[in-house]
């Protein structure tokens, strides 16, 4: 059978063929994407590390002045903290003795899996990590840093890779609490690496620099993980609730490894 030679038929055949291929690729989307991620991983890792190095280099140059004054402040803060640590060591000893006495034992630790970041989406509020269904990863598992800072949750799982939805994503919202205070609110992502602390009762007072951690409310994340610190507060006398910006603790430009909580 000869192919029709008129250009309009050729274009039509091309479109039908294209739609068929795309439908087929979408049917096997997970496998196709996993194949591309696996073959590209070595090169992606090299690019990722080079990117981190270069961005750190530029950051250092632009921040030398700020770093000088910050260094002075940190030295003072360090002295203060050293004194506090000395006090805390005393308290820890006391606490241990009391725990033993009450026979409570330490809290059960989480079962963690170490993963490396391989790429960041152009839409920014997603990252790709090199652990997938083969490593026991399932959707909605919380993702944290080694400093126990909340990063996000597993959104999509491929065979060897997983896509992580950052807590800054517009679709994420969960319960949060000011550290050391009984002030609860809703933490919700705003996209472009921004988060807000919403639904704070107007009778409760928070201030810039307050730390926010997770609560069990909403059940999306385990309690006690740090989220960020309070930035600009937006308060009006008319409304019964107000909100504040949160600057997240995690910095994607400095992160390479993450932990996934397997037993949550």
């Amino acid at each position, binding site marked *: 059978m000869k192919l029709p030679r008129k250009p309009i038929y050729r274009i039509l055949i091309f479109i039908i063929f294209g739609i068929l291929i795309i439908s087929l690729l979408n049917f096997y989307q997970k496998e196709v994407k996993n194949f591309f991620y696996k073959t590209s991983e070595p090169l*992606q890792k090299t*690019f990722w590390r080079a*990117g981190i190095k270069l961005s750190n280099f530029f950051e250092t140059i632009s921040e030398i002045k700020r770093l000088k004054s910050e260094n002075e402040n940190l030295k003072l803060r360090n002295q203060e903290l050293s004194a506090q640590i000395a006090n805390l060591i005393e308290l820890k000893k006391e606490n241990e003795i009391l725990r033993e006495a009450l026979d409570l034992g330490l809290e059960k630790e989480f079962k963690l899996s170490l993963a490396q970041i391989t*790429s960041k989406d*152009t839409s*920014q509020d997603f990252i790709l990590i090199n652990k997938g269904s083969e490593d026991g990863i399932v959707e909605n598992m919380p993702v944290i840093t080694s400093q126990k800072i909340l990063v996000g949750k597993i959104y999509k799982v491929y065979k060897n890779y997983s896509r992580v939805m950052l807590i800054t994503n517009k679709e994420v919202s969960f319960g949060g609490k000011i550290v050391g205070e009984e002030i609860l609110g809703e933490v919700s992502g705003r996209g472009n690496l921004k988060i807000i602390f919403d639904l704070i009762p107007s009778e409760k007072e928070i201030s810039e620099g307050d730390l926010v951690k997770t609560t069990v409310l909403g059940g999306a994340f385990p309690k006690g993980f740090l989220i960020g610190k309070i930035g600009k507060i937006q308060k009006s006398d008319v409304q019964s609730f107000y909100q504040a910006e949160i600057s997240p603790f995690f910095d994607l430009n400095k992160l390479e490894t993450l932990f996934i909580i397997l037993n949550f």
Partner: protein
Amino acid sequence: MIKKILILTLFLYFLILFQISFSAHFYILNIIPSLILIFTIFFNLFEKKENVSGIFVAIFGGFLEDIFSNSVIGFHILIFLVLSIFIKFVFKKYIQPVIRLNQHSKCTI
């Protein structure tokens, strides 16, 4: 032709990896510029109307964007293809001659 397509395929593949792994660390106003999109636009702008390599760049570039992002396969392909066709047939046929004519009349004045 095959050599050109092979070179373009390899270039686009490196470009997407560069975009998602390297340039992802340097965002401007919280936006990571899509190098693939920029390349597709410029490639189609500077290519002759009769050549079809621009269409290939749009399709393959869109495909790679779909693979390395969270969207379904076909989403970026469609956007890039429409953009490429727009540049090739609408912009070059109707808008560019008007711009040239305006520039020419300014020169004669």
